[in-house]
């Protein structure tokens, strides 16, 4: 089998935009294969942050002075950009948070306080990240509600038939990821949304990985909530988004209190601000949130057909190499290659994931080992951890080849 290297030029152009990629570790060129954990930041994001800090660095919304006005524009125009990027119906449906985890916890609390009662049911899947499990467990514990779990099959696919039969009159919310950070499989989220809605049940989609690799059209997909982090999509850390349909957000109690999330504060009774302020308590992340603008621009660029084609060729190469090797067990086996992103978690017979990661690190390759904040899917496969590589469009075929060679060397040291 032969894998063509497309667009060699372009990937080098893209790499040049990310200063961190030119680092050396232990004197070797960095091969950054931990993008699912956090992406690198392009110079445009770095420049934006610097510009914000050296210029319109002011607390927003309420002040009338020039810096505050500029800062407000920077922040609010970012909301418009995000709205366009995910195609939200209105800007009020875009809430800024500190990340996916915060977005999901917001919904778990606010939706939970408003709609969840003893005996109600919430459904998650077996392949969720802890951030899309623990908030629901905590909610269920508090409200004496029941958490149900969609199982995945041996290949890592959600068992939708079982899912269809899990609904009862008490099922109040479903929380399922668009793409698992362990399996790298693209869930059929539109179908899942349809199943939920045909059961009159809203759904939260965890878009932490999905926003990077698939993007989202929240009106087309029609999910009720969508959560993602800035830092995984090239923006500064500490930024995040919650999309929510107005009909829910308007009814939901606020999560955090304080700052401008109020209309009037009286000791006799406080009333809350309208959307989106109601859910943005405290001083906003004035310096970092607007870096979502250049980050989104970068994400759009990464969706370029040629860039995608190159990235897919790297993915196909890795998929082939990792499935062809009898010592390797891949978790998340796609039925068609386009159902998988360039993210591979696997186990090597006789070699512990952590030993592999340590040795690969010394060869300059940043991989992740362990449970990847998704212990239930580890238990599902009966392993204590996996080794994961997760690529971005700035990763090259050469890096992938170097990785495969290095992996072989590491295995030979250990087995």
């Amino acid at each position: 089998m032969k894998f063509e290297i497309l667009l060699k030029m372009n990937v080098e152009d893209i790499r040049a935009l990310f200063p961190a990629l030119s680092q050396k570790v232990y004197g070797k060129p960095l091969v950054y294969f931990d993008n699912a954990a956090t992406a690198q930041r392009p110079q445009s994001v770095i420049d934006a942050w610097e510009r914000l800090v050296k210029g319109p660095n002011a607390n927003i919304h309420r002040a009338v002075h020039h810096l505050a006005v500029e800062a407000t524009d920077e922040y609010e125009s970012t909301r418009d950009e995000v709205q366009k990027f995910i195609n939200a119906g209105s800007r009020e449906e875009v809430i800024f948070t500190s990340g996916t985890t915060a977005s999901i916890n917001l919904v778990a609390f606010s939706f939970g306080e408003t709609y969840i009662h003893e005996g109600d049911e919430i459904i998650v899947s077996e392949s969720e990240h802890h951030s899309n499990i623990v908030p629901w467990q905590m909610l269920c514990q508090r409200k004496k509600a029941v958490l149900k779990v969609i199982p995945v099959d041996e290949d890592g696919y959600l068992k939708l038939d079982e899912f269809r039969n899990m609904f009862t009159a008490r099922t109040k919310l479903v929380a399922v990821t668009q793409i698992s950070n362990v399996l790298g499989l693209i869930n059929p989220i539109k179908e899942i949304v349809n199943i939920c809605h045909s059961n009159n049940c809203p759904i939260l989609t965890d878009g932490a990985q999905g926003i990077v690799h698939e993007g989202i059209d929240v009106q087309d997909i029609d999910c009720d909530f969508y959560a993602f982090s800035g830092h995984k999509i090239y923006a500064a850390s500490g930024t995040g988004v919650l999309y929510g349909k107005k009909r829910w957000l308007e009814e939901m109690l606020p999560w955090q209190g304080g700052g401008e999330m109020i209309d009037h504060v009286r000791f006799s009774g406080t009333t809350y601000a309208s959307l989106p302020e109601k859910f943005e308590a405290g001083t906003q992340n004035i310096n970092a949130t607007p870096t979502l603008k250049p980050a989104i621009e970068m994400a759009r660029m990464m969706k370029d057909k040629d860039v995608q084609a190159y990235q897919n060729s790297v993915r196909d190469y890795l998929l082939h190499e990792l499935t062809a090797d009898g010592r390797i067990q891949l978790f998340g086996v796609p039925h068609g290659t386009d159902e998988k992103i360039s993210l591979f978690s696997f186990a090597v017979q006789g070699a512990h994931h952590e030993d592999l990661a340590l040795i690969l690190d010394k060869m300059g390759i940043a991989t992740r080992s362990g449970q990847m904040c998704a212990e239930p899917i580890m238990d599902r496969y009966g392993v204590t951890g996996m080794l994961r590589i997760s690529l971005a469009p700035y990763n090259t075929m050469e890096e992938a080849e170097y990785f495969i060679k290095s992996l072989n060397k590491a295995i030979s040291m250990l087995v």
Partner: protein
Amino acid sequence: MKTLEEAKQAVIDDFSMYDEWLDKYEYLIELGKNLEPFPEASKTDDNLIKGCQSRVWLDYKVENGRIYFSADSDAIITKGIISLLIGVYSGRTPQEIAHDDFGFINEIGLKENLSPTRANGLVSMIDTIKAVALENCK
């Protein structure tokens, strides 16, 4: 009475005399001070325009198919702005107002000279005036 177009042009002409923000502000303050007294009894929550930093009240009556606005604010510059608006739109028919694009606001540089929060207030004021007109078109 001036036509709507004439009234708008008069405002544009007035403002174009001033290059300096200081003069523009003084002009607005003057407008604010000269606004007709607004009855305390009309300072109701219903008449309060949402989305302004300072409190702005807008009331109206309809006579002979024309809308007559009255307004007040506790901040004088805001009061000047609402005064300017009702000076242009008071005494017009609902249809006239409803079909207007309020674009002259941009021509006098009011939006740039005021903050977006304040500009938002301006937008809220315009929206309220429009809503009143539409309400009375039926």
